[in-house]
Structures are given as C-alpha cells and as structure tokens.
C-alpha cells in the first residue's frame, strides 16, 4: 500500500503480547489449547486406568488412586484461585481470558480425574460427599459456560445502546410526565396511576427477576384500568394511557435487561459457595483418609 508510515509495530513490546487484532472468545482461546490439554489428560487417565493393574481393584487408596487424588485436589485449589486472579490487578503480564479458558477445560477434566480417582466406589460417606459436591460445582460451571456463550448477544440486542442508568432514567422521566399528566384525571383513574408511580422497578423478588414475569405490575394494571375507563377528561386520559404504554415498554426493556444479567450471574451464587463447601468436604476427606484409613 502506498502508505508512508506502515503503522505496524516494529518492535515486539511488552504490550504486543496482549495485542490481538480480532476478538477471540475464551472457549476458542489459542486454538482450543486448553481443550486439547484437558482432553489429552482425560484420555490418558481413561487409557492408563484400563491398562494399570491394581489389586484387588481400582480404588482411591491405591498408588494410582492417590496420584489421581493429588492431581484432583491440586486442580481444585488452582481452579478456586481464579476468583483471586480476577480481582488482583498485578502489573505483570497475564490474561484473564487464558485463565478462564484453562479454568473451564481443566474444570471439566475434573469429572474424569475425580470419578476415576474413586475407582467408581461411591457410598454414603464424606468421601462421596466431596465427589458429589465437585460434580455439582462442575455442573453449575457448565451452566455458566452455556449462558456466557449464548446470552451476551441477547443482552446487547435488548439494551440497544442504552446503559442501565439510562433505562432507569427513562422510566423516571415517564413517571415525572405521568405525574403532571394525571392531574386532570378522576380520583378513580388517578389511584392506579399513583400506584404505578410508586412502583419500584427492582421489586418483585428473585423469581420475577429470573422469569421476567411480573404479574402484579402496577403499570400494566393502571394501563388496563385506564384503557377500560370512560369518565372524566377524555383527552387527558388518552395522554396518560400513551405515557403508560411508553413506560411499560421501558419497563419491559429494563426487566429483560435485569433478567439476562441475573441469568448470567445467578449460577455464581451456587458455584462459589459450593466450591467452599467442596473445599471443606475435601479437607475432611483427606484428613479422614490419612488418620483413619
């Protein structure tokens, strides 16, 4: 190209390492590097499990079982460290995307590492509790991976360049306009409008937040009442109905936004506490193995 200054970076600077020209998601990171590594690990375990002859049979207490158990415990601790890595802004080079990628794929490999460690001996004891908790953590994580891969586009489409603050602001603006527009209404018509004004856009609880259904929505109720009403100043009422419709649309957008955000976050409220429960059960498991086996 007839360009005077090819602005390609001539020297490989430190920042070069984080410089990417295209977006590449955490699942595809570095050509599925961690998928390959963890897949290889699982394959190796499955094959070696079949080939290694442990007497009387495979179990957690054999040398093979101990090896898998150690790998599994170390992985669990390392995977937990993501929570710290994510929040600790040290100045050296690291990429949280690479960490997430490794976290996802190595976390999935724990299904094999952990289960094969048990030698498929499960029972009603603290050992199996640790395994069950681990599987629950992995399942919740799997949900997380799925929503991370599918919901962001919907979040983006719904917000349509508006920020959450702007959505709230839009609702407040309609409220203020409703407040003055509702002055000429009859008392019977005013009451539902006032109830709509008092409505807290965040109210409704977890169920409403996650389902996006708000059956007791005061704005929708006011809209129904006023659309059916026929007393008083007709022009004023139509104006209020128009405003209520606009407010309802704005509310719907905000609620959809909150719903998608909640779906993107809710699993962490399972994943993280269960991880701590897992670490506790894992400690009990290890201690009991060494002291009472």
């Amino acid at each position, binding site marked *: 190209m007839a360009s*005077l200054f090819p602005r390609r970076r001539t020297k490989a600077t430190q920042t070069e390492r984080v410089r*990417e020209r295209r977006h590449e998601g955490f699942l595809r990171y570095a050509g599925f590097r961690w998928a390959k590594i963890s897949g290889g690990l699982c394959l190796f375990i499955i094959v070696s499990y079949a080939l290694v002859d442990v007497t009387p049979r495979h179990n957690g207490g054999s040398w093979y079982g101990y090896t898998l158990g150690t790998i599994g415990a170390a992985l669990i601790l390392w995977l937990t460290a993501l929570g710290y890595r994510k929040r600790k802004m040290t100045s050296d080079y690291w990429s949280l995307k690479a*960490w997430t990628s490794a976290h996802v794929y190595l976390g999935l490999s724990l299904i094999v590492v952990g289960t094969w460690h048990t030698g498929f001996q499960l029972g009603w004891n603290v050992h199996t509790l640790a395994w069950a908790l681990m599987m629950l953590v992995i399942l919740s994580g799997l949900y997380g991976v799925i929503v991370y891969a599918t919901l962001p586009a919907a979040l*983006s489409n719904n917000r349509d360049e508006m920020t959450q603050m702007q959505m709230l602001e839009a609702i407040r603006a309609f409220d203020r*306009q409703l407040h003055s527009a509702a002055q000429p209404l009859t008392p019977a018509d005013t009451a539902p409008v006032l109830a709509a004004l008092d409505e807290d856009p965040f109210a409704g609880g977890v169920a409403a937040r996650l389902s996006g259904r708000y059956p007791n929505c005061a704005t929708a109720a006011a809209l129904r009442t006023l659309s059916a009403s026929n007393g008083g100043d007709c022009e004023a009422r139509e104006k209020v109905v128009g405003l209520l419709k606009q407010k309802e649309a704005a509310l719907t957008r905000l609620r959809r936004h909150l719903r998608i955000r909640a779906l993107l976050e809710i699993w962490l409220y399972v994943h993280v506490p269960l991880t701590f429960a897992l670490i506790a059960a894992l400690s009990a498991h290890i201690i009991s193995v060494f002291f009472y086996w």
Partner: protein
Amino acid sequence: MSEPVKVAIIGSGPAGLSAASRAAQLGLSHILLEKTDHLSDTIFKYQKGKRVLATPERLDLRSDCRFAEGAREYILGNWDEDAANNKVNVAYHAEVAEVTGAKGAFAIKTAKGDVYTAENIVLAIGTQGNPNRMRCEGADLPHIIYQVDDPEDFKDRHITVVGSGDAGIENALGVAEEALENTVTILNRSKDFARAKAKNVSDMTEAGENGFMSIRTETQPKKVEPGWLTLETPTGEERIECDVIVARLGSVAPRGFVESMGIEFTGPDREAFPKLSPTFETTVPGIYVIGALAGYPLIKHCMNQGYDVVEFLNGNKALTPADEKDLAAIFAGLPQQKSVSEWLEYLRTRIRIFADVSPLQMREFMLDSKVAFYRKGDVVFEKGEPGSSLFAIADGFAEVEVGPSVTVSIEQGSIFGEVGLISGRKRGATIRAGEDSIFVEVSRTAALKLMAAVPGAKRVINRISLERQLLQIFKGGLTVEDLEPIVEDPAIERVPAGKVVLAEGDEGDDVYVIRSGSMVVEKDIGGKPIFLRYLPAGSFFGEMAVLSGEKRNATVKAAVASEVIRLKGEQFKAMLAKRPQVREATEAAVAERAAMNSFIESRKASYSSAVDLYSDTASFIMKEGLGEATDALLIDENLCVGCDNCEKACADSHEGLSRLDREAGKTFAHLHVPTSCRHCEHPHCMADCPPNVIHRGPDGEVFMEPGCIGCGNCMRNCPYGVIRMEAAPPEKPSLLRWLLTGFGPGPGEPSPKWTKKQLGDEKPKKIAVKCDMCKGISGGPACVRACPTGAAIRVSPEEFLSIARLQEDAD
C-alpha cells in the same frame, strides 16, 4: 484628575498585584486599577475552598507577594495582607474605559469618569473579558453571579439562569442535576435558542420535558429583589421565587479594548497575543502587557512578570528573568561556553524557523526545548519510533536514511522531524548526525505555539514539511528541484469529515496526498457502497486515473477532518516522465490496489453477506470517529457478559478511578465502542492545556503527567467525552482483607458514598483523569488483560479493518 504617577497598572490579578507591589517596594509612584471591590477577581470567583496549584514547580517565584499551593481563601488572604504590607495604592471600582495620550503622559479614563495620568501603563487584565451585566432594577444585588464553578455548591435552591447561550444552558443543566434538588428556571429573551449548540438545546429541552427545569422563552427579568424575581412574560408580569440568579449574557473579549490603544497582535486568529519586546513592551511605547493576556496563563509566570516588568521600567537593565537558571541548565551540556543570551542569539541567527522570533519568545520556546550535542553517526531517532517533537539543526548536518544505504543530508539551519509534528504519526525515517552537530529539539506544544505566534516560522515549517512529505511518499526517486513548482504554490485543501474528495465515475486526473487526518475508499458494488480500505495520513490517492486515463474507479472521502495536497495531473505526469523509478513505484502501488479491489469485488459475488458486514462495520467504525484513533478499545458484545471487570481493573491499576465506561457508547452488529480514550492522532485534549502536561508517550499513548491544574479544558475539548474531572479516592483496604473480612469497598472504583465517608469534610482537588494505555505497566492495558471472556481488545482502525479479516470472515 489625580496626581500623575510613574506607572498605572490595570488589573489586580497575580500579574498586576505583583507589579504594583514591586512598584511600591521600589518607591515608584503607582496606581493599581481594579474594576471590582476586591483584588484578583478571577481567583476570587473560584468556588470556596478550591485548591490553587503552584505550577510549574521548577520555576522560582520572584515577587513581593507570597504564593504557594493552597486553598483559594489562603491565597487571597495572603495577597490582601501583602498588598497592605507593601503599601500598594489600589483604586477599586475603577473599570478602565479609555486610554489616550502617549508615553510620559497617558490619560486613563474609568467608567465612573475618573481620569488617572501615568507615564507608563502595565496591562494585566487577563483574558476573561468583562461579562455583560444585568441591566434591570436590582441588578447590583449580591445574589446575581456571573459564573458557576461547581454546581454542587447549590443545593435545594431556587435558581434562575438568565441568558440562553451555551454557557447559560450548561450552567442550568449543571445545577438542575436531580440529586441537588434545585428548582431551576432558564430565561430566554427570544423564542428559540439560536446561539447555542444543538446538543445543548436538546439536552435542555429534554430536561425541561422531564421536569428538571422550567424553560421560559420570550421572558426577561424585570426586577430583582432578595429571594424574588419579577419577570416580564408575553402574558404580563410574573413574580417567582429566586435565591440565586446566574447571569450568562456573554462577555466582551479584551482584545478589542487592547487594540483600541493601538497595540498590535501577532495575527488575526484567536490564539494570537500582543507583540511584545523582551521587556514586555507592546508596539505602543510605554504600554506593557503581562500575564494571561501576554500568553502566560499560569499564576507563577504572571507574578514573576509583574516583578520583572516594573524592574525594567525602573531602569534595571541587568535583570535576568527568573527562568535564567533553567535556560542555563538547558545549555549546560554543550561543548562551547556561552552565556544564555549568547546561546539564544546563536540559535536565533543560525536556525531558519527562529529568524522572526523575538528574544522574549525565544526564551519561552527554549524552556520547552532541549539542545543536545551529537557525535558523528549518533542516532537522533529511529524509523517507526513515536515522537512528535521538531528538531532544528544549529550546527553540523543530519543524515536521513531514505532507503537501504541511501541517505539524504539536511543542512544546518533547516529542520527535521516535522512529519510527526503535523500528522502525529511515528517517525518515518532514521536520522543520524552527519558530523559532530548541535540539534535543538522543540516539543510539539512549543512548536505549535511557535507556528501560531510567528507567521514566518509557520511558512518555513509548512514548506519544508510539504517538500519532505512528497519526497518520502515517492520513495526518494524525486529531488527537491522536481517538487519546486508544487511546493512553491501548494494547493492545500481542508476536507471536513465525511466530505467526498473523489467520486466514483468522475472525470479528473488530480492526485491527492493526505497531509493530516485519514480517508476511506469506497466502491459502489451492486448498488451499495462497499468499504475498500482506510488511508492514513501520508498516503496518496487518485493516481490510478492518471495512469489509466479512465474515470475515477472508487469514491474517497474524509474519515475525519483532514488536509490534502492536490497535485495537478500534468504535474504528476511530468514528474513520472522525468523519473522512471517513481513511475515504477507508482505502478506497483496501483497494481496492488487494483488487485485488492478486484479481490473484494470477487468476494462480493460469492460471499456477499461477509463483504456487507465488513463494509458496514467499517462505516460504523469511521462514523464513531475511530478514523482518527491510533488505539481504541473495542468490545465484542457476543462475548461481553457485562461483568465490568475491565472498569474495575482500570480503576485498580490507576489510583482508584476508572477511565472507561463500558456500557456507554454506540454498538453495531454487536461491536461496541465504549467511552474510552482512542489516543487520537491529533489529540483534541492537547490543544489547550495551560500547564502543558498532556503528551504522547513511546507506545503512542496520549497521557497526562502530574501537574494538571484542573481547568477542565481537555475534558471540554474531547469530542468523545472520555476525560473525567475527578479526585482520586482514598486508599482502599487490601484485596485479601476484603475477601476475608468484607472490609472496604472491594475491587474497582469505590462508590462516591464510601469515598465521601472516608474523606469527611475534606474536598480534594479534582483533576483531569484519562486513559494512559497503562503506560509503565509491564503487562499492558489492564482492561484487555482483565477481560474474562476475550470481549475486549485494543486495536488501531487499520489493524482491525485489515483485508485479512475479510478473508477470514469469507472463508
């Protein structure tokens, strides 16, 4: 008429007060004329408790008045004391209306009708001008203010803003902020808001619709009383509650007043300053100009000048300015021994761009410059390095590496490095010292100031840079003589953003060179304009038509406001005929472009949606102003989960404040351009920074060094709204402590509530905060590193819009 004095000082700001104090100390008869009833009105009008900074730190203060960093009250208190102790003779309420007479006997008439006679006049009136006052009954009441420093000073008040220009609307919007709970009314004499920017008018209209303020058109104030305001409305008089009146009725700039005395300016543009001698004397003998009006906005400079000007007036010829030691330090490393003034004269006479510079300006420019001695063969800078400073050759000569083992020399007196200055791009070639040489490096700001203040310097720089730019574009195949006719009378055209320079299908054979800014090339394929490529500054276009003789085969339009040089087709052809190498190089470039065009055209047929998406994405990116970006944050909303870890990482990497707003900004096809610095080629923020602390760093980042005075110019100048005025929050408890005990606000920018609780009544100074691309952090930009899903990347437009991208998308 009062007793004649030796010197009358007009304006009692830092410069005027310092001058008057010196006069008093020297026992000169003097009068200090101040239009208000207090000293230093500009600083007096600062908000209560505002911290005033004492920059530049390296400059010593030379004044009979004290000045050190502190709150407004502390500084004003000191000055009042100093004025009294020095026995300064002040005349308050003395607004100068007219100056007549000549050196030795000036007559200064004030608005009240008093006349002062003085042998000399020192003008220290600053640049604010006089705000137009309200004229109705009660217009002198103290609750009428003429500026709003901090809207947060007003809470739960009835405020009426008079005047509907931008200043009035912005103030009204500021105080109408919901949290302040003010009742705001804005008055406009006419029906519409013709004088204000469309954005301000729409913001105001929206605020009006939302009930944040009431907008009264065709309404004027009639009578002001404490707590009440009577309005004259189209339907009669009305009395409204009103605790504060903000009057923004425009102001009269001081230039007209200064020119009415016969004082000449350096040029017609707004940035021009009065022409001054080394002793601050204007073109009218006996009238001196100091301070902001002379082009020195910093308080310390002003105070030093006040001292100096009176010393000069008193016949002190030996006085060296306060910056003498700084200048001496600049010259200290050079092999020859000369005094500062000898050095200045040496440079002035030997360097072409300094030829028309006055000795006073010379000092100023040298303070922002470096002078260094280079041994033969030393590298001054390397190709591809960032850098925007300008070099001048005081002694010796420089060698430019134009190609492998091809060098061109630049003679003594000339300049180099000017391409970076004009286009903001990285260095185009490596430069070495051809023999033992002395080069002067002038910072970008100083060079721009030089060009604005000295037309001769501007001409020389423009001519040389044009010549070099053309030489480099045509790869050294041309000589200076070939370009003579073009450079002699260059056709430089300014192109506003979005304007078409060449339209597909047009006749014409002119060739254009992009001097600054950037262009996009589009082609109509299947009835839809398809983006072909992005042309940064330093590229040329239009050559295809010259070579082929056909119509224009693509449309070229400006991505951002740009400057192009138009070369006539015949001129270009003559050049090609004369230099076969240039012809070859041009043909090669044409072939490459043609190949790319046909590639895209062929893709269009088979992968039409990929080409459309690429093209639409490119148009979106250009529309968002990224054509002038060098490095921008782009978020893929197919990947962004909205965790805001980028913002948190940014805040935690930079004293607790985030420099980006992820959610805000435009989106197209899930590609989101958040509110964050793009590190423009010609940073708008740099345009007007009084302490000159915004620079471009080695990785191309535009950053601020410490020393911001909090004036907010950069924030207002940034068209992308990426600069915040904010004070750094107090230190947070460590991350581990938060994780384990929940103590502290956690990662990211602490909430204003937490900060407020920590600070109590303390109100720290707000300074400008902007992205520095994590300069000095070895890991690179924190926003990108901390993104868990890979949604955030930082790229330049040409990296992002590469053909490789289209190829990948299509395949």
